[in-house]
């Protein structure tokens, strides 16, 4: 990443963080239901999504705000969806857990863990049969990697040569269960070998490293025609779902990762390299704050869906 791109990445990561903090505040003040925030995972989202072309597609899950905002989704319509309003991306029918934005190629978002893994093969098959170049990125967690659908999906994609960038965002937690309680191996990227495809693991808190790894993976998919399994090693800095006091989290583990906050480290590096002035940073802060204030304002003013919506969009 160029310094310029890194600065843009920092601002987008700050936008994601601010969005999540706003969602938390709204939940705490009873203005919105709980959400699964991506606090701490912003680098993984921006690093991968910015490696995609506008024609590539994305499948994501319950922890999607980072992917959506990295892709350029409108914070106002995301916030409206979280608050269940008519102007939300899904008219309020989804809420925060499965926000799709077809116009941006963010497709079939599911909160069933493993749902995206079950659907992405079909999305990639369409792309392949319609002779559309590019890839489909599929974001899922370390928990989803324990579901049988992970096995079925990666294996089918390998056998059928589907252009899928599997992105396992390993944040060490599966709701209230630590990843180490659920698997004996450390690196999910290594599982690629079991399917005869390539894989890699990257520091998910270093946006530049993630971006490079994602671009290399996409190049590899173009070369081999096969899917690629990329693991971004990161950490869930807030609880699983608001509210969650994380009393069950080892404080040492948490502080270890707090010290590796992807936003703080990126900012520090940019400043150290002389690519970011305090003024630059303040300007970013201001723009981000304004965008999120607008989003909240927009969502608050958006009407509730009309009751007639209860039974629309069931059948085509």
């Amino acid at each position, binding site marked *: 990443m160029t310094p310029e791109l890194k600065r843009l990445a920092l601002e987008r990561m700050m936008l994601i963080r601010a969005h999540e903090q706003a969602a938390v505040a709204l939940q705490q003040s009873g203005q919105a239901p709980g959400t699964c925030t991506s606090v701490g995972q912003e680098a993984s989202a921006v690093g991968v999504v910015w490696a995609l072309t506008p024609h590539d597609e994305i499948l994501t899950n319950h922890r999607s705000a980072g992917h959506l905002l990295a892709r350029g989704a409108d914070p106002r319509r995301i916030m409206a969806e979280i608050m269940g309003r008519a102007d*939300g*991306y*899904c*008219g*309020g*029918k*989804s809420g925060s857990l*499965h926000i*799709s934005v*077809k116009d941006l190629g963010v*497709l*079939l*978002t*599911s909160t*069933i863990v*493993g*749902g995206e*893994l*079950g*659907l*992405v*093969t*079909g*999305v*990639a*098959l*369409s*792309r392949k*049969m*319609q002779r559309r170049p590019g890839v489909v990125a599929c974001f899922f967690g370390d928990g989803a990697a324990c579901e*049988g*659908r992970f096995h*079925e*999906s990666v*294996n*089918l994609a390998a*056998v*059928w040569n589907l252009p899928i960038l599997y992105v396992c965002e390993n944040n060490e937690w599966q709701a209230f269960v630590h990843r180490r309680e659920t698997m004996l191996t450390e690196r999910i990227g290594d599982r690629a070998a079991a399917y005869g495809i390539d894989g890699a693991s990257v520091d998910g808190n270093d946006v530049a490293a993630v971006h490079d790894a994602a671009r290399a993976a996409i190049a590899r998919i173009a070369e081999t025609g096969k899917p690629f399994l990329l693991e971004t090693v990161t950490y869930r800095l807030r609880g699983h779902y608001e509210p969650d006091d994380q009393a069950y989290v080892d404080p040492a583990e948490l502080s270890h990762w707090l010290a590796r906050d992807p936003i703080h480290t990126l900012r520090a590096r940019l400043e150290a390299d002389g690519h970011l002035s305090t003024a630059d940073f303040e300007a970013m802060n201001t723009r981000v704050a304004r965008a999120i204030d607008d989003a909240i304002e927009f969502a608050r003013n958006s009407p509730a869906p009309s009751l007639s919506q209860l039974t*629309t*969009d*069931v*059948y*085509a």
Partner: protein
Amino acid sequence: MTGTMNDAIEQALADEMRRDERVIFVGEGVATKRAAIAREFGAERVRNTPLAEGIIAGTAAGAAATGLRPVIDLLFAPFLCYAMDEIVNSAGKLRYISGGQFSFPMVVLAGTGSGWGVGAQHNHNIEAWFAHSPGLKVVMPSTPADARGLLKAAIRDDNPVLFFADLALLYVPGAPDDADIALGQAAIRRPGRDVTLVSYAKTVGACLEAADQLAADGISAEVIDLRTIKPLDEETILASVDRTGRAIVVHEASRMCGVGAEVAAIIAEQAFESLRAPVLRLTGPDAPAPASFVLEQAFAPGAARIADAARTLCQSSRAPTRDLADA
């Protein structure tokens, strides 16, 4: 031209794959077992898969949402248990959840029902599950012609359709003539005045047999073949019961919360004034399907049981309420 329901399914597939190149056919061994289809349409559109129903159904849903029109063969109904998430939570719900951003034009094929002696993990009539779930349609034909017409309609429909083939009927010769049949239209297989027998799949034959026996006793039974289970053709059912004043619902699936419960409930709610007798259900038992031939043959209600029930019903009847009202 004659052929079986199995032939009819293959013909409908070929017809639609010729008509619309977005139609693909996917499943465990489909390219091997439907060699003619595989030859005509090629390896890209006719695909064998690894042994994994969940990803087959998920792939279909993902492909349907992005421009293809998949038909998947999951072989036997109980295997759908591995694909319930993809069928119910994804294909059935993601249109709604997304506020209408996606549609899922896909068909799921599966066989079920007594006849092959393969036991409860190959034979389980679960069509009611899908009727109970939003966003899905359900078809279960009783003749080759209906299988052909309904499968073509299912493939052209923009919603996920579950297409169940009754194993006992799959290789029975018939006439799979090429008539268009819209989803949601029941067929009156035999008109009658005294009692309405509502059924689908293999038990339609039992009802027709029963109707013959009843005719001998001067009882005129009307036999309705639902053909499509969801959307259900309530009009045809209610119009018939308004005329006959008596109804018996018959199917192989088990009783509790089955399609028969739905049909009986609709009649009890919307044809109450016409009813001259209780609405009866004759169904398979609350038991898994046995493999042993004699037990398997005893599972679904047969003509004798149906005729007996109809006789009792016609004896113990009263005038309908609408007449009583004037009394």
